């Protein structure tokens, strides 16, 4: 019998980039197939072609042996191909069942929500996707919203489900839950295409893995026969160290102290609700938590970019709570924001001008009247050399750099200012393995230098690899602080997962009670 899906020699050329180069891929019914590759490898482009968003320059798509031409996502879903994007496409104010039937034409203009809800409940039972059809989507946790997306596809009779980086927004327990669902889907004859750059996920859940590099298929092999090391090598094209060496180190005095900090979000709702943390010199304090639990608001308040409602921020005993961002910078507080393109840099300006963002006044002549162009350029050249920024020139537009290179500019700029304390937010989001490795090494070097680092990251692996202590933020409150490496890794991850889902550490004193598999949310 022909396989469910076969891609043959799919090629897509963008100007200057061959995004996909004769990519062939076979997915069997009942299979979880992982598509692994670094950023820019061509994964999304390939999936967009399969979903009818782009058209391939060459190559063919065969569904059960039949050639297929897709013109739109509607076409794709009509053929049983469904895709879940990284950002969910649900309407928050609608109920689950409304979201599921929206856009469907069946049964004429009059929506029969009741029978839809019945069918939905049947599907949910069949696949173990517990969801209340009448619940409003805005009240559901991210993990449950993801189930709604899956149900939406199943309701449309999808046989092939494409998931683009689905675990980025989930707690470890939610991730486990998702994988269980995927296994059940496969067991019932569906095929799953899982796009990811996380090696352990591939090994955990996939049957088959295809590795893509620079638009080309490097290899396809059964996941069970692969190792993380081998996959990493295939993905990057060279040996990579998966573990960072974190030298043991004496921590210094408390440098960054946050006391009962309260901050409001953009809509005026409390987002940081009484956070107290202390970061010592030579220490990395990891702040874990699912995105959107107040991490950004906390970081912005620390840098003076968002008003503090109550509480105190001190740096080396100096009260900075009411200081301007410029004054905080002058006191050697550094900040690497999550959004390196909109906040951390000014895209249309050159690398040179970005290199002096925040320290501009040091590069002037004539009593501060004019810019000292020569000095700016020298500083930028120093940064580019020191931090290995790959660019044709320091006058190149910063916004045109790749994510990894732009992050090196931001990182380099902040580190060259020799911060006493550094707030680092999602430093490797969207970066490839090589750049991630680099950023991690630089952060550890700062730690060795004696700076106090507050590392905010939604990637638990990153937190675990770098932190000396780990705090968990949930809905603006600290659930607890663990010292890294004092328990065995698995129970530590479980503990962190439970805290990320809203259980305070104090309530989890009995470590080895089997955690509720899916903590309540919101």
């Amino acid at each position: 019998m022909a396989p469910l899906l076969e891609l043959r020699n799919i090629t897509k050329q963008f100007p200057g980039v061959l995004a996909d180069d004769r990519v062939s891929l076979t997915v069997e019914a009942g299979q979880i197939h992982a598509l692994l590759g670094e950023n820019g490898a061509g994964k999304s482009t390939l999936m967009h072609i399969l979903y009818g968003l782009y058209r391939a320059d060459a190559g063919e798509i065969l569904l059960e042996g039949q050639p297929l031409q897709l013109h739109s996502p509607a076409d794709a879903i009509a053929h049983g191909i469904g895709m879940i994007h990284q950002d969910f496409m649900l309407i928050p104010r609608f109920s689950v069942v409304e979201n599921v039937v929206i856009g469907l034409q069946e049964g004429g203009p009059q929506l029969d929500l009741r029978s839809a809800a019945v069918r939905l409940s049947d599907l949910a039972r069949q696949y173990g996707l517990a969801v209340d059809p009448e619940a409003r989507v805005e009240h559901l946790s991210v993990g449950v919203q993801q189930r709604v997306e899956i149900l939406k596809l199943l309701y449309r009779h999808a046989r092939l489900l494409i998931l683009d980086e689905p675990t980025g927004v989930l707690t470890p327990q939610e991730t486990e839950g998702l994988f269980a669902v995927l296994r059940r889907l496969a067991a019932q004859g569906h095929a799953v295409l899982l796009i990811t750059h996380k090696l352990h996920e591939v090994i955990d859940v996939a049957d088959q893995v295809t590795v893509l590099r620079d638009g080309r298929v490097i290899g396809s092999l059964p996941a069970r026969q692969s190792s993380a090391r081998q996959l990493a090598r295939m993905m990057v094209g060279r040996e990579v160290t998966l573990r960072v060496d974190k030298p043991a180190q004496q921590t210094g005095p408390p440098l960054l102290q946050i006391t009962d900090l309260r901050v409001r979000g953009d809509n005026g709702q409390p987002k940081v609700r009484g956070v107290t943390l202390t970061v010592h010199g030579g220490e990395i304090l990891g702040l874990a938590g699912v995105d959107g639990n107040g991490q950004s608001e906390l970081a912005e308040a620390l840098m003076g970019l968002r008003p503090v409602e109550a509480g105190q921020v001190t740096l080396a005993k100096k009260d900075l709570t009411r200081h301007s961002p410029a004054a905080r910078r002058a006191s050697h507080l550094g900040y690497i924001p999550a959004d390196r393109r909109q906040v951390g840099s000014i895209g249309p300006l050159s690398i040179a001008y970005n290199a002096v963002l925040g320290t501009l006044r040091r590069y002037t002549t004539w009593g501060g009247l004019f810019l000292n162009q020569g000095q700016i350029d020298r500083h930028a050249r120093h940064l580019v050399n020191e931090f290995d920024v790959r660019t044709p020139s320091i006058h190149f537009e910063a916004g045109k750099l790749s994510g990894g290179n732009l992050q090196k500019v931001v990182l380099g700029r902040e580190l060259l200012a020799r911060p006493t304390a550094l707030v680092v937010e999602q430093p490797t989001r969207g970066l490839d393995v090589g750049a991630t490795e680099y950023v991690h090494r630089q952060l550890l070097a700062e730690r060795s230098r004696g700076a106090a680092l507050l590392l905010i990251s939604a990637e638990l692996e990153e937190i675990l690899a770098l932190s000396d202590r780990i705090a968990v933020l949930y809905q603006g409150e600290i659930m607890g602080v663990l010292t890294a490496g004092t328990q065995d890794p698995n129970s530590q991850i479980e503990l962190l997962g439970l805290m990320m889902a809203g259980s305070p550490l104090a309530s989890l004193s009995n470590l080895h009670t089997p955690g509720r598999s899916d903590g309540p949310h919101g």
Partner: protein
Amino acid sequence: MAKSHWIERRLQPTDSLLATATVTLAAIVLALLLGGLLMLPFTPHPGQAYWAIVENAFGSLRGLGFTLVKATPLILIALGTIVAWRTSFFYLGFEGTLLLGAAATVWVALRAAPQEGLAGLPGWIFFPLVIGAAFAAGGLWAGAVGFLRSRFGGNEVLVSLMTNYVAILLVNYLVSGPLRAPGDLPQTERIPETTLLPFFIPDTRAHAGFLLALLAALLVWLFLRRTPLGYELIATGFSERAARYGGIPTSQRLVLAAFLAGGLGALAGLVEVLGVQFRLMDGIAQGTGFVGVVVALLGKLNPLGSVVAAILYAGMGVGSEVLQRRAGLPSSVIFIVQSLIVLLILAGDLLRYYRFTWPFRTGRLTATARPRE
């Protein structure tokens, strides 16, 4: 085929020089062709009419003088626009700042009449003084809008448009009340001879205000390119969040940009009064404050580009006026051509977001993959 696949949206607009030049040139040619059609009822030779415009505007010293006189306020308004818009402060109140500048200028200049307080002041004191006064008047006028925006948010476009009406009424009040000269007309006294700007090309109307505008263009260019304050304005304009992150007090910078923009816009009023009108009366702005914004956009918000754009734009106006007088060709035709050029250049900008491919480049696909019915 369900969709045409030979146009694809780009992630980023192309900004190659070639693409920009092509689009600009195509816009101008297309506008001239369309304008040519409109001319046909009046003249069988649109090409000659265009040529006559160029000759009238630039072919003689006299014509060139007129052109430079018309270009001068446009340059100054454009410079104000550049400072404001590059800071992402989309100010449209330049009619108002021009009038405020004109009013302040006339007030100071009238003080220099015999028997008045400033009588006998030497030029090297008087001119800096009057320039400072006009700049401050317009600066405060626009700066207030900037302050409102930075303090309370809101939309500076609407607010600044409304301030134009206030300024028009204010001038109306001044010339019919406090500053009205004896006589039938609502206007002020003529300002004294000693306060007029000298002509700088003999036997033409070109006055030193043009040199002032050139100097201002140079200073604005220097300011934006070479000073920390200029950098901070531009950084604020590109990304307020990033600028704040970089320690730049963006609210203050916004107010500064508004002040400078208003001041530059007021100088347009100053040169009109000291170089052309010699008194304050109703209707001296007449849209200059808006055309100047257009000129700035045509000059890609670049000071030197705007000087060129202002001279060309003014030249078309001057040339077409002469044509109307001599050949009966309505100057509205030329105004339409001017507007079309602007419109097409700005619309052409959108084309840079698309990529065009020829159908045969995707031919292989249709050859190998047949649609499934």
